[in-house]
């Protein structure tokens, strides 16, 4: 696996368009991380990510507050791109409430993968939720995860662990100030130990006050 930072740009306004190139013909994921804000309270915001006319996905979060720049839940978006050609990414508002300005940034990297495709799991809340996957190897893999959550009480640390076969293998901890305000938690890229065969994996919470609902989205990727 190889990683290449493609660009980091201020969005300035939507729609946003940028040309870029990749350096390998390997199957790849585009890691997309960005911010935006909502022009009204209690509305979903999101950015549609399109490359060469093909929509790859939407990075989004639920915005309880208006006019408050927010980190969107970053995603790994699978695609295939020709390294001999230039490509165009177009970023558009995914909802009518989504706005981006010169204080918003989009950062995109290419994750060039090996021969074994990763396990990718995208869900909407609420969590906890679990699924199964098959590891083709025993040894070290790489786990990426991201998502959002909220709490009914203000000023608390909450943690979102990824649980593998009943054991937490990584946690993203963060502090939420306002109550009832969805917030993307810091994404994590961490090594994990894998065993050949089928396993259960999923998202949990480390305290009962952590809330999530259908307005929260999550991604988990296991690279082998």
């Amino acid at each position: 696996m190889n990683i290449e930072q493609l660009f980091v740009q201020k969005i300035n306004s939507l729609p946003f368009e940028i040309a870029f190139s990749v350096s390998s013909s390997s199957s790849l994921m585009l890691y997309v991380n960005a911010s935006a804000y909502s022009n009204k309270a209690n509305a979903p915001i999101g950015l549609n990510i399109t490359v060469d006319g093909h929509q790859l996905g939407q990075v989004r979060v639920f915005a309880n507050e208006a006019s408050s720049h927010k980190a969107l839940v970053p995603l790994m978006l699978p695609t295939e791109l020709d390294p001999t050609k230039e490509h165009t990414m177009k970023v558009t508002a995914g909802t009518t409430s989504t706005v981006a300005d010169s204080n918003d940034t989009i950062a995109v990297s290419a994750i060039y993968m090996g021969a074994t495709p990763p396990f990718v799991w995208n869900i909407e809340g609420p969590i906890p939720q679990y699924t199964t996957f098959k590891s083709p190897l025993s040894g070290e893999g790489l786990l990426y995860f991201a998502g959002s959550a909220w709490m009914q009480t203000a000023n608390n640390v909450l943690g979102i662990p990824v649980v593998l076969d009943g054991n937490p293998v990584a946690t993203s901890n963060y502090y939420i100030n306002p109550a009832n305000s969805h917030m993307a938690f810091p994404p994590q890229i961490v090594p994990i130990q894998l065993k050949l065969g089928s396993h259960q994996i999923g998202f949990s919470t480390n305290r009962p006050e952590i809330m999530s609902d259908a307005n929260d989205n999550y991604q988990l990727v296991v690279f082998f």
Partner: protein
Amino acid sequence: MAVTQLVVNQQAGPLPITTQFQALGDGAIDVFLSGTGYNIQAGPCGIEMWITDQGGTQVGYTAAEIYTNEVNQHRTLLAMTRDLNQLKAGEMYNVTIQSISLYFTRTDQNDFFTATIVY
């Protein structure tokens, strides 16, 4: 499969955090820094990570930032991968993670930081 190394793993603030790591491989590497922070004044909020060799020469830098409208509210920063200079396997490197000095960013024990090297 890439080799990955957790240089800092969900370490609580406040910043700065300083540590060392021994490079596990040669060649082109990438670093991923994630965490949170808050501002005492509205504006860009961010942290940065410097990697230097034992002679003090910079071999890598990355940052994680977001614009914050709110004061004294912890915010998730945009975590991105960053290409670094080549490291030498077996050599020790110094890491410093700190608030970006130009910003009004602060961190405390309620902020957590992870830095991952991908070889």
